[in-house]
């Protein structure tokens, strides 16, 4: 019997044509300019081909044609929601090549601002995830309320709301302005209540649970194969968090738990994990504020009045651990010849920077390891056999930033 005859006799479904749809790059929900080439059977996705590169800005090449000082200001734009982390990754790689030691207070300041930035990034994710699930105008702005507070604080310390350029090679840009630490600790106190509010809206919402539970299950092995990192990986049961597994900076001095979800994670687990991470970041912030050498900036200023801000390295008020910068920041900033790679844990996963320096004022080669790109690679496998409506639920839950993908 001919195959088509068998097919005709055994088929129990309607013969339908597949529909090819371009989702993006101008689709309102693709978080920027991602293009998904979808092959649909009815409303179900049969094949996905993400097309990236619409926002390619040659960030790596630009790094090779700008001085270290210039590129430090530019690199925040790669991942515009967590600029602190990109500058930090570059700073750490450059410090590794150069061999300079960041003072302890500088490291604490780095942790403080970047954990704040992690919270803002997760808050924005939470809000836009609400939009992805169709809570159109209502939900997104609650997280934005807290995000505004944090951005105001970050603006106060760095002068910018998104492109901070605060973490520099060798330390951080400046000491905190008066009253800054008090405001941060105030925020730290009230933030857990606010997270409770979000959870009250979403975590037990039956529609939200229906939309997310059991949707877009990312298997552990698949996640590892694709090199997925960050919360999406931890939601799939792999305890990989550089802050814990390979503690850098001062993370080994802080007590915190990295939330892990046991077993294969779905979108709901990824949501829960991010919410837990926000609480955890808040906890880290609290500890940092307690442990930071020299105390708040205001206290430190008072102490420095005694020595008239001498700035000597052996001064007990100005030098050693209490400094925030180990390298002179000017346009002639040079890094010793050599090569080095260092990675940190950004809100989206492992963010790595590889540098080859020839000792001049520009780098010979830059290479970034962006978490969003690797996370996005797992998307097609997650989307297969889900309806159109789930595309955004899943895509939102792996939290990619398109400039970070395209660089």
């Amino acid at each position, binding site marked *: 019997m001919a195959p088509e005859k068998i097919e005709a006799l055994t088929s129990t479904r309607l013969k339908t044509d597949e529909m090819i749809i371009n989702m993006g790059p101008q689709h309102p*929900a693709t978080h920027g300019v991602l293009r998904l080439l979808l092959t649909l059977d009815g*409303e179900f996705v049969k094949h996905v081909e993400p097309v990236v590169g619409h926002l390619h800005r040659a960030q790596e090449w630009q790094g090779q044609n700008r001085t270290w000082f210039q590129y430090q200001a530019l690199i925040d734009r790669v991942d515009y929601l967590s600029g602190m982390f990109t500058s930090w990754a570059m700073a750490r790689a450059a410090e590794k090549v150069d061999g300079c030691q960041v003072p302890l207070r500088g490291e604490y300041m780095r942790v403080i601002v970047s954990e704040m930035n992690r919270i803002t990034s997760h808050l924005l994710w939470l809000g836009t995830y609400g*939009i992805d699930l169709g809570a159109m*105008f209502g*939900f997104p702005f609650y997280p934005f309320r807290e995000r505004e507070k944090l951005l105001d604080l970050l603006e106060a310390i760095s002068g910018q709301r998104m492109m901070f350029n605060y973490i520099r090679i060798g330390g951080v840009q400046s000491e905190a302005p008066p009253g800054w630490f008090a405001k941060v600790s105030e925020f730290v106190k009230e933030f857990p209540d606010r997270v409770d509010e979000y959870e009250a809206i979403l975590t037990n919402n039956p*529609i939200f649970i229906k*939309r997310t539970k059991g949707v877009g299950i990312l298997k552990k092995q698949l996640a590892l194969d694709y090199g997925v990192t960050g919360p999406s990986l931890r939601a799939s049961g792999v305890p990989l968090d550089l802050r814990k597994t390979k503690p850098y900076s001062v993370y080994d001095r802080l007590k915190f738990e990295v939330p892990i979800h046991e077993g294969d994670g779905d979108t709901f687990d990824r949501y829960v994990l991010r919410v837990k991470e926000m609480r955890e970041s808040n906890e880290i912030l609290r500890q940092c504020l307690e442990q930071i050498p020299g105390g708040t900036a205001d206290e430190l200023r008072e102490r420095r009045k005694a020595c008239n801000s001498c700035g000597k390295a052996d001064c007990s008020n100005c030098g050693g651990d209490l400094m925030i910068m180990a390298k002179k920041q000017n346009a002639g900033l040079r890094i010793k010849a050599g090569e080095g790679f260092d990675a940190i844990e950004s809100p989206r996963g492992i963010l790595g920077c590889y540098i080859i320096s020839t000792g001049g004022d520009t780098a010979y080669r830059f290479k970034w390891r962006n978490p969003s790109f690797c996370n996005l690679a797992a998307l097609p496998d997650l989307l297969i056999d889900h*309806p159109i*409506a789930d595309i955004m639920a899943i895509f939102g839950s792996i939290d990619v930033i398109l400039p970070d993908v395209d660089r």
Partner: protein
Amino acid sequence: MNPAVFEIGKFARLTVIWLSIIFGAVWAACWAVGVFAPALINASGMPTETASLASEVLRALVPVVAVAVFIPINAMFMVLCERRALALFTVRKGPNRVGPDGLLQTAADAVKLLFKEDITPHGADAVMFTAAPIIFFAPSIIGVLPLLAAASGNHELFRSVNLPTGIFYVLAIASIPVVGIVMGGWASNNKYSLVGALRSAAQAISYEIPLVLSIVAVCLMAGTLDVVKIADQQKDSLLSWNIFGGGALLPYVNLVVAGLQGNNEQVQAIMQHFQAQPLGPFAAVLMVVCCIIFFGIYITGACAEVNRIPFDLPEAESELVSGYNTEYSGIKFAIFFLAEFTNLFVVCSIASIMFLGGGHAPLPGLEQGFTEMLGGILKQLPGSKEIFSPGWLINSLVNPSTVSQAFWIILKTYSLVIFAILIRATLPRFRIDQLMAFGWKRLIPLSLILLIALTYLRELV
């Protein structure tokens, strides 16, 4: 002061100003066409036959004038109201630049939309593409007509649109817009639009059943399809509203009241009724529960009918760009937009007439007191019967009971509208399969069971 309270105050002020403008304008237009113009014609010395025919024609036109004035400005206000209320619910400010407090924001938006280029996409079916917004909008205009009579307390100007098939007419007309959506989605030559249109068809058909069943339950209790009669039956008090069982509890409450007052005769009479129907109180309470659930079913079905979140799948932004109206721009898009809000207003006013007692106050004393007070004030005025004198003008302009009814029905309807906005501000969107499952597996069986239960309970009360 708490900034939230301040913002709420601003929002309330805005709402009151806009609503006064809207309803003042509508009433002025109706009065000019239905009272003033006929009086002018009569006074002008035309032949009697022609004059009375002309004034009858004018008075028959009043409902049309009312709706034609009301629909656009009301929809414009509802857009503004939604934006301001959403802003309030989400800790923002909302539009506040155009006019005082953003009062004229949607007017500016409407002007902008009118001047935008009207694009027909390549490969679209031009005729269908143009017809779709009209088919979508027209029903919401002709569908509200019977509600006018009920909302104005059967005022003589609107009596003519009080159809005996009232609510059936409204429901039949309200089922038409889905045709416009499917037509527009198909004619756009866009896959997203097509998917949105198909979803809309599926959704409208499945949610129409529980919606109609909940209305049927009310008609069953009222024994009529006439909206004016249904509204009238609920005039006694809060307990006679259909959401609270349409007066099922009244005899028992009366019994308690009479017992407290020591009125023996009434107690005796009702006790006899009790003995005839020993299950009465129990059945009455069950009936109230049924009715409240039916109200919930109605609100759910209505949200699905007018494509509100959480049922706004036909135009789900994050999935289908903008669903069936993706390709529309300019005036056609404006018509779609207006019609959506008008439909929301229509379902909310149906709910307030069918379930929430129409134009009647929750306590009878309120309505009576207001009417008597206003009537007293009107009597103080120079009560000249002479035509065109100030007394005649004021007496023909202000009818105490209509004013009271209009106030209550506006209050109820807009409370429901703001409730719908609150739902929109809180809930995420369903997925299409979950939506269908919820409709067919939960709502329809539930409403059928409740309908049967209500039929029997009615006999027991």
